[in-house]
């Protein structure tokens, strides 16, 4: 059974996805000075709406803050062979973004440096980031 849900993104997530299409990662500056990636619709501290026009670009390299090995990939996962899910704090961001990490299991460590691998074609979807990959040291 399959349903194709059509969702409205709202202005902020829409701007984030539009950024991905342009191969940029955008975040929101919140009222405490933190940069939140992906950007939320509302400021978690003040509850004020986030304005899409105030989003800032962050780096495309970052640090793995946590990760988990996925031994049994499911339909729709970024890979059809076992791979890692990782939380990545991009340079310039204060929060972590969840995505797949393409690296052998025994090379993955918390704190390792990774970078965005863009999809061959970007359309305005989270999969425009194909995955993260290790930064060559």
């Amino acid at each position, binding site marked *: *059974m*399959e*349903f*194709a*849900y*059509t*969702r*409205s*993104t709202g202005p902020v997530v*829409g*701007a984030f*996805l*539009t950024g991905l*299409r342009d191969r940029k990662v955008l975040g929101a500056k919140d009222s405490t000075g933190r940069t939140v990636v992906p950007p939320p619709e509302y400021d978690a501290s003040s509850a004020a709406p986030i304005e899409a026009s105030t989003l800032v670009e962050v780096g495309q390299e970052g640090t793995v803050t946590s990760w988990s090995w996925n031994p049994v990939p499911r*339909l*729709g996962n970024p890979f059809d062979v076992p791979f890692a899910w990782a939380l990545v704090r991009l340079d310039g961001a204060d929060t972590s973004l969840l995505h797949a990490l393409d690296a052998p299991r025994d090379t993955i460590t918390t704190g390792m440096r990774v970078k965005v691998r863009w999809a061959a074609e970007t359309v*305005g*979807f989270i999969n425009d980031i194909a995955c993260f990959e290790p930064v060559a040291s």
Partner: protein
Amino acid sequence: MTEPITGIVTPIRLDYRYTPGASTSQFLRSIKEGKLVGRRCPRCSKVYLPPRGGCPMCGVEFAEEVAIKNTGTMVTFAVVNVNFANRAVDLPYVTAEVAFDGTDTTTMVLLKGVAPEEARMGMRVKAHWLPESEWDYSLVNIDYVEPIDEPDADFESFKELL
């Protein structure tokens, strides 16, 4: 493409693994060979298609297999004017509940060969099967039903099935 993103499509999918049981397994093996096989309740004599393990009314096990014909009566129907995802049928179309001759249950199947406004309860129809090379363990082997040149069935003869 420079318009900002305002919407996304996120498919949600579930794969079901279905264990049909002995009776429905036999039915599925038969339909793979192009045959409709129902089962009769030894107590109330009603014939179920597809068959289950036992009669839901009498609570007794089915025993006798019954070969079912390709002809039947459309006991009711719905005209579909709004399509849903992945259904490639021209609108409007008619979804029919058909009691195949010799059964006491109905099966939902597409009706073709008649304009929706001419569909009638009681119409006599015939199953049109997919080409043999496409037969699978599925009722989908019956591609659709189409009207046959017979007088409509009397309402009294099928009102119990509504």
